[in-house]
């Protein structure tokens, strides 16, 4: 499902990205690529979607967030 529908506070894994080359590349370089785990920090339906990647917070416009497909996830154990 697109990131725009994700509730704040939950964790998701990125499955795929849609959009132009420049857009995808930009996100990839910032660390948002398939497989990565994101936490949705803020999403009020309008305005930005803020996601957390470890300690980093990345803001995305609604349009952009809609192009990021994710699946829900709940990871508690350590990552080695």
């Amino acid at each position: 499902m697109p990131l725009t529908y994700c509730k704040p506070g939950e964790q998701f894994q990125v499955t795929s990205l849609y959009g132009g080359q420049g857009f995808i590349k930009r996100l990839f370089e910032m660390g948002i690529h398939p497989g990565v785990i994101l936490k949705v920090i803020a999403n009020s339906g309008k305005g930005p979607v803020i996601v957390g990647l470890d300690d980093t917070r990345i803001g995305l416009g609604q349009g952009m967030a809609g192009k990021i497909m994710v699946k829900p996830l709940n990871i508690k154990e350590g990552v080695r």
Partner: protein
Amino acid sequence: MKTIEKNKVITVALAGNPNTGKSTIFNALTGGRAHVGNWPGVTVEKKEGSFKYNDQSFSVIDLPGTYSLTGYSIDERIARDFIVRKRPDVIVSVTDSTNLERNLYLLTSLIELGVNLILDLNMIDIFEERKGEIDIKKIEEALGIPVVLTSGLKNTGIEKLKDTIIKTGGKNQGYLKIDYGPDIEKAIENVELQLAGINSPYPKRFLALKILEGDIEIIEEIKRQGFDNAVQAGVYETSKLEKEFGFDLETEIIEKRYGLIQSIVRRSVYKPAYAEEKLSTSDKIDRILTNRWLGIPVFALMMWITFQLTFTLGGLFADYIDAFFGWFSGLSSGWLKEINAPSWISSFISNGIIGGVGSVLIFLPNIMILFLLLSFLEDVGYMARAAFVMDRIMHAIGLPGRSFISIILGFGCNVPAVMSTRTISSEKDRLLTILINPFISCSARLPVYLLFTGILFTKNQGLVVFSLYTLGILVAVLSAKLFKWTIPILKGPVSPLVMELPPYRIPSALGVIIHMWERSSLFLKKAGTIIFAGVIVIWFLASFPLSAEYAGEASLAGQLGKFIAPIFRPAGFPFWQAAVALFFGIIAKEIVVGTFGTLFGGEGKLAAVIPVYFSQLSAYSFMVMSLLYIPCIASIGVIYRETNSWKWTAFSVFYSVLAGYLTAVLIYQIGSFLL
């Protein structure tokens, strides 16, 4: 292979993502002493410093924070150009250890550039606080480069870093070659073959990869050198690979890099699950400030407070500065009389230099307070959020969310405002943001408004001034729409906003002051150079021929004014003094006031003389003209430097003059008809 001789200065460049604490490392290395300048040809800030360690001198350059070296944004191109052309002895790749995978992506690009590298795992204190463990040896082995743990904030590991820099500076490292798998490797090889004999500071493999990644700048450079075959080979290989495997080559290459990073990080880093069940304070604040209902009202309130403080506090200081320059000018002219200086020298110093520069410095408090408040909001972390809050509104105008920052700065001074557009990565959006900025009413226009409204609109001064600010914004918005609609290269959708948000924090007072000073000093430099030169020109035009009265009708200035004046008949102010004032206003808007002062026989007499020449309507029309036409020489200069195009600079000048003239005429004509 070069070895470092004694006495040679070792050059060190710091590269890294934004928010990795690069500047704290820079400060820790250099002790905070930095020379801040600009990168040649562009106005991205360049920070340089130096230090001594074990009798060895070092010079340090802080490269712009980037995520990669693809050349999408100016920052990336600068970092890349510096690395390959200036060949620093050592590059320290500063990374955030709490977020290693993402941070190491830039390192892969650096590795491919074949430079001498040190990996600096910064913010190690936070990482260790969370009980993380890193096996340095394993990372060193895997990457083939030395690794140092530092905390710029706690100033640990800095000695070790310096030692490592000395050790690394002299030798060429053998690193790992990133393996893209047999199919892509074959393609790289084929493209590389076509590059035989190319004269480039980049390694051939890097060039080949960039061709396959579709890096426009590199491709153009290669074409310029006549290696079209290599580019064609790249296109051929790309389409072949994409057809065969159904993937997109560019993203496939990036994924391969991440794959390598992941495997290294998995082997050498242990990170316990970071119990993040409850949201941090910063996150909670974000929920409120970016909320769909509260976001815009909060933003409006912040801006309202900012401007209130700017103009109330700024006004207090302005009076003192004004009084000081009046006193200083009197003092100097008295002194010059005493030593029997020729009267033209006396006039040059008192009228020209002190009076002219003084009239500009009056705005310094306004500008410093505005920039202080904006720097505070930025360092707190709010500005980045505000860009998102404003994104939807800005989009409706056809601008990206970030351009609001340059609009707000424009209320202080258009020069730093135009410079601030460099954070907009899309060239198209950036150009549009630059082109509309001159219409934002900077603080230098305010004295013009105050002069006229103070004399002619005493009852509703505030309202009239407010209407001019609003008109400026309106013209900016309509122009943006017009440009977007008519100018082909500005067409197309606005690039979407994605930006890293730094956590909210209470900034250090010193940090905010430095930040404010960096911007205000741009204004001071303008006062010191361009305006100073302009003031001399005005004084010259007003003084010669020597037989004529200073700034009188017979002076060069007066003759020029007489020549231009008739053009302004439809706008309601067809007399030479207005034309001269506007002409000199090109140097800096505030000079309009000073010029009237000189031409009407002293600023003290203006209250009596202005109503003779101006009606309320023609004064308003004159203020509109002052608002809209060319902000000042300094802004023309900065538009040229930022667009790097005489064509766009000329366009901006002509368009603004035309917009000012037509709006003034329109207002005067409609006004005369109605009143």
